[in-house]
Structures are given as structure tokens and as C-alpha cells.
């Protein structure tokens, strides 16, 4: 069954605003990763958060993980037009392959 599921499916904001995307999953995990995909390109790894971590930062990115609710959020602060892309969460556990969701399409309008 599908593991990660992102919400919302699409998000449109003005440049300079913050963007928040959520990911919910169904089973226990070892870690959760976020990837970005620009149109016509491959996925690029953004950040990994382990199951024993609650929050992680990388530049303008902030990721939180709530294992009790089986959910994660990705916050992009001070968004730029270049942040326009699809964002995917992926869950990892043991030796099973990373499981991706459907993604959130983010549009940042200049």
C-alpha cells in the first residue's frame, strides 16, 4: 500500500512567502527524506531526518517529524521563483526500498 502521501497536491505562493508541505505515512520508518524535482529533471535529495529526530534544518529548509502522528512537514522560508518544483517525501525502513508519495507541486510567483 502507498506509504508517503504529500499534502497539498498543489501550492501556489508569492515570492518571499513561506511554503509548507506535509507528508503522512502508514507504517513505522527508520528515516524520512525529502526530494525536489524540477520540470524535466531528476529528483534531487534535499534532507534526511531519522526516526529519533524531531526537527532538522538545512539553509532555508526546515523539516519536522512526528512519529506518533506518522507525519512530516517541509517548510521552505523566504521562497524564491527557483523553488518552483515538485517535492516528494520518501520513507525508508530496514532493507525495503524507499517509498515515495505523489508529490506536491509548488509554484512560486515572482
Amino acid at each position, binding site marked *: 500500500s502507498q506509504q508517503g502521501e504529500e499534502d497539498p497536491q498543489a501550492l501556489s505562493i508569492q515570492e518571499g512567502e513561506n511554503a509548507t508541505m506535509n507528508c503522512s505515512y502508514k507504517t513505522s520508518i*527508520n*528515516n524520512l527524506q525529502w526530494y525536489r524535482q524540477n520540470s524535466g529533471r531528476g529528483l534531487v535529495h534535499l534532507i534526511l531526518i531519522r526516526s529519533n529526530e524531531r526537527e532538522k534544518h538545512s539553509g532555508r529548509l526546515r523539516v519536522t517529524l512526528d512519529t506518533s502522528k506518522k507525519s512530516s512537514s517541509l517548510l521552505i522560508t523566504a521562497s524564491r521563483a527557483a523553488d518552483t518544483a515538485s517535492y516528494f517525501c520518501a520513507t525508508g525502513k530496514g532493507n525495503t526500498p524507499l517509498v515515495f508519495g505523489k508529490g506536491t507541486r509548488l509554484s512560486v510567483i515572482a
Partner: protein
Amino acid sequence: EAGVTQFPSHSVIEKGQTVTLRCDPISGHDNLYWYRRVMGKEIKFLLHFVKESKQDESGMPNNRFLAERTGGTYSTLKVQPAELEDSGVYFCASSRTANRASEKLFFGSGTQLSVL
């Protein structure tokens, strides 16, 4: 360092034809994965190679799909005969170590396959 490369970037074929996709992983990466994204749906795992061996092929849809990785370098994914539902973007990814749960993946740009 060269990234993961995939060829072709686009392929349009008719139902019943054969198509072969190729992936060149990052040099030194023993792990190679194939994923597929059908429009509007999630990115689904197809299979995983460790060097030339198939570690996990639980995501392969059916026996019309054949993946190989001769010599543990590049990989090919052949669809024969192609059906309409095979349309989608096929991604290849590689990673250095075998612990998938903690390893970030490096993706190619994908092959957009359209079966008419």
C-alpha cells in the same frame, strides 16, 4: 563527477513494440534502482541491483519487463511487448552502499515513455 544518465530522454512507441531504456549510474555506485511514475501517481519502485545481481525485483509489474545489469555497470530495462499502461516516466537512481533506508539516492532525469 558525472551524474546518473539515462537514455533516451523520450520514447514514443506503438502498443506491441519493444523499447529498451538505459541507465548509467554514478561511477563506483554498486546500487542501482529503477522507479516509475505514472502521471499523477506516486513514484513506484520497480527493482534494485547490487552490482550485477538483482537484490529486489518485487516492484516489477509483470514478465513483460526485463532488467539487466551486465558487469555491474550500466543497466537496461526492456519492455516487450509494450502496453498502453506502461506509459510514464522511468527513473533510474544509484547509491553507494546497500543500506537503502539511510542512503540518499542520486537520480537520473528519467525517460518519458509514451505508448500509443
